[in-house]
Each structure stands twice: as structure tokens, then as C-alpha cells.
């Protein structure tokens, strides 16, 4: 397969490509899923982070 005899190598080669394709598929299928409103905790966290950044 792919000019490689050892199945432990060509399977790794293919798995790399397949896992990247899974990422593409997952991203496309869930493209519009998971939207959330900004909660007070989120805002408080951002304020804390901005302050730390500004101070530094």
C-alpha cells in the first residue's frame, strides 16, 4: 500500500489522513451547533483576563 510494505506503517499513514478527514467531517456536521449566550461568568472571566493582560 502506497509503496510501503509494513502494514504498521501504511496504516499509520492512512490513519493520519482519515483522522484529519474526520476532523473536517465533524467540523462541517457541527458547524452551526453549540451556540451559547454569553453568561455573567463569561463576562467576569473576560474582565479578569483583560486586566491581567493590561497589567502585564
Amino acid at each position, binding site marked *: 500500500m*502506497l*509503496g*510501503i*510494505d*509494513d502494514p*504498521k*506503517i501504511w496504516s*499509520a*499513514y492512512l*490513519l*493520519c*489522513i482519515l*483522522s*484529519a*478527514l*474526520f*476532523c*473536517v467531517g*465533524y*467540523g*462541517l456536521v*457541527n*458547524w*452551526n*451547533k*453549540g*451556540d*451559547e*449566550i*454569553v*453568561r455573567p*461568568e*463569561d*463576562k*467576569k*472571566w*473576560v474582565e*479578569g*483576563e*483583560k486586566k*491581567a*493582560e493590561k*497589567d*502585564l
Partner: protein
Amino acid sequence: MDNNMLILTIVVALYLFMIGYLGYYGYRTTKNALDYLVAGRNVHPFVMALSYGATFISTSAIVGFGGAAALFGMGLLWLTFLNIFVGIIIAFIVFGKRTRKMGHNLDAHTFPELLGKRFNSKFVQGFSGLVIFLFMPLYSAAVLIGAARFLETTFPAYINFNVALLIYTLIICAYVLAGGLKGVMYTDALQGAIMFVGMAALLVFTYVKLGGVIVAHQALGSLIAKVPPKLVEAGHMGWTSMPKFGSSLWWNLVSTIVMGVGIGVLTQPQLAVRFMTVKSNKEINRAVLAGGVFILFMTGVAFVVGALSNVYFVNNPVFGKISLAVAEGNIDKIIPIFINSAMPTWFVYLFMLTLLSAAMSTTSSQFHALGTSIGRDVFEKVILGGKNAKHTVLITRIGIVLGVIATVILGYKLPGSIIAIATAIFFGLCASTFLPSYIGALFWKRMTKTGVMASMLTGFFGTALWLLFVHQKESEALGLCKFIFNKPTLAKFPWVVVDPIVVVLPISLVVAFSVSLFTKKIDKEHVNACFKNI
């Protein structure tokens, strides 16, 4: 100064100007991830993924592990698989979403702070901060060495390794001082984009030069007779085969390189906090798309090209020998020598920017994690008992400076062929020390403070003892075992080549879960607050 040197200087200066401008623009318009979050808008998912990817992938992965692939062969692709499967799929989908929500629920801004607040423990936060502060320089030095090796190889007449290291240190320090720590996302994203183009071009060039995908792989397979006898003895069975099962080379590849780095990515403090800067799970879902492809083009390309460099060097009459011999035994030099001799001059410039981007984006976040770990996690939390002191910022800055100094000293002192090893040690140490606690923090409400403390101490000291007295490569170099017991290691084969992560991480996991079952539960109200909306 010859023309090439002049052109390169101009290209690098233009690049730095562009990065500086984008950083300034981002600062002026305050269009960073945080503002988007507050405004309830989404950061473009590709920007988030490129930013995460640029932080994740460094010169260590490209130069160091690419060189390791030239030694071990294409078996390193198992690491690329884990980089995508664990580093993107598990890290984003399973860990990232909960990390973001729990981080916001607890108002945690660093990885140690997340663990410390989740388990209501100053010790957990302080100890985690100290481990990161003391050992992160090993990883940042590996990144710096990777960049410096390329510069040294490109201009051997003008720049030696020490000067190259100094040049990179100055560039990175200037970047950090100019606000690189703030992680202005468009800067990171530009760096990620340059890395993507550089690596994609490298893959195409290499395969074209060697006659195509299948021909190149077959040529690599046919080099089996060129494997040096010492490597054959250690278990090497050619560059398109895995090493002999159970041999020292097999353990080295599988336990240290593949498992250590592949699993350790989950507990990289500078990466875990990235998830907190996005607004919703939607952004994480979308970022998975670009993240997987990005990593494939980073480590996947580096490892394939690293292994194939053997074909180029053997077939080229100027060299006529395998990569390891061309680099005179220093695997960290293989990728730089290959790029400089096999690729057109303009590509060498592009690759220089690729490596500069990879080094800058990673080291700036490493120094940020270093500084906050000592300033916020150790000084403010443990020494001042959680009071927000005006000195925290000063201590953080001092921490960054000390981190830079330690990084540069290690860069000068560490031996050759060290990039992959130093990176793997840090990743493995983080996995054994933090992973059981991180899993428990996010997924098991019953995990207790005592369980976490016991697990962290087991993971840290277990790894340290294993490196000092068992794993021969390190125990021999560190010399304590020889000093006390008058022998380089206390163990016998195969334990002397088994990475600590294989032994210590499972023990640390068992300790975390079993001790938790027999110790005092964390207050239910606090646990519920941690898991709010999760």
C-alpha cells in the same frame, strides 16, 4: 555579506514589521478573542484553529521530531495520528468544551489555577505552578535550538550555533516585550498560515523531487541495507518499517516519542487555557475542522519528509550516505541540511519564516505560562494567600525574565540530538503529574483534594526517580545514580529504555482514583458551582 544573506535579512525584517503592525493593529482596535467573547460574536474558527495550531506546533516538532523521523523512519507517523486524534479530537471535543465552561465558572486564568480552584487547594495550584516554572525551560530551549540549528546551517560562513541562538533570543524577547504575550489572534493566525504554506510546499517539493509518492516510499524501503549495524542491533528494520517489537529502538519510539508527546499534549498549560478564550462550543466544533488539517500538514509533513531525506542524501552524489551520517550524528541538523541542499533558495527563505513563526508563537505562550505560573499561581496564591497584590505583575515579569535566561542557558548547554528528547521529557512529566487530576477535575465529581495531591506527587516524583535511576539515557547523563550506587542505572533491559509515562502515568491514575474513594469529599455546593452548565 553576500546577496542571499542580504535578501534573507530584508525578508525577515519585513516579516517582523508585518507581525509588529498586526500586533499594534490588534492592540489599537482591541480586536482580540476576549472582545469578541464579550460582544457575543464568534472568532473566525480558522483563526482560532490556526492560533491554537501555531502555539501547539513549534520548531521542536518540525526540526527536532522531523530529524527523529530521519533516524527512526515513518513509524513516527503514529505520533502524527496521536497529534490529531488526541491533540485535536480528544483535546477540543472532550476536554476543551468542559475546560472552557469550568474555567469561566471558577474564574480561572491559568491551568494550575483551574486545578487549584476546582479542588479548593492552594497546594495543587502552587505545586502545579512550580512544576511548570521549573521544567518549561526544557521545552522552550528545545524550540529555540530547533530554530537556531536552521539559521546556523543556512549561513555557516557567518553564523555559528551560539550566534544563531542569540539572534533568535533577541527576536523573541523583542516580540514578547512588544506585546507578543497577549496572543493577538491575528498575529498567531498569520504565523499559523505561513507555517501551513511552508509545510505544504515542502511536502510537494519533496515528493516531486523523489519521483512521486509511491516511488519515493519504495526508494526509502529499498534503503534497508544502508541501516548502520549499530541501529540494526538496536532493532532498526528500515525506514518504512516499525523497529523490532520490544527492542530498545521500539521502546524509544513508542513509549517516549509517540506516547510521551502524543498524550502529554492534553496537559500542556499554554494550550489548555486557549479553550477559555472562545465564546461557545460552536467555535470549538468549527475549529476542529481546520485544526485536524493543520496538524496533518505540520507533523505529518515533517515526519514524512524527515524519513524521505534519507533517499535524497543517499541518491545525491555530493552526500551518498544516510541522513544521520550527513548530519554527523546530530539529528537536529538533518531537516536544516535537507532544506538547504534540496530546496530552491526562495524556499529556504519561506522556510526560515515558517520556523520563525513556529518558534515565536510557541515560545511567547511558553514564557507567558512560565511567568503566570510563578507570579499568579505560586506567589499570589501560595505566598500571599490569594490576595491580589500589586507585586504579582512584577513577580510575573521577573518569572518571564528568569524563564528566558534559563531557556538560553539550556540552549547553549544541552547536547546535540536533544530537541525531541527534551520535548518528550516535558510532555511526559506533565502527563504523569497533571493528567489524572485534569481528567478528574472535568469528569469525576467524586475526585478529592487528597486524591489529586497524592496523584500529582506520585506523577512528579515517580517521573523524576525513573529518569534519575532507571531510564538509562537520562540517568547516565544526570550522573546521580552513578554517584550513589556506582552504576549508571538500577534496572535491567527493557526497563532502562521504557519511558516513565508507561509506568508512572498508570500508577498516578490508580492513586488519584483510589485515594479519592477513601478520602473526604469536596463540598457538594462547590462541586455544583464548578459543573454549572456542564
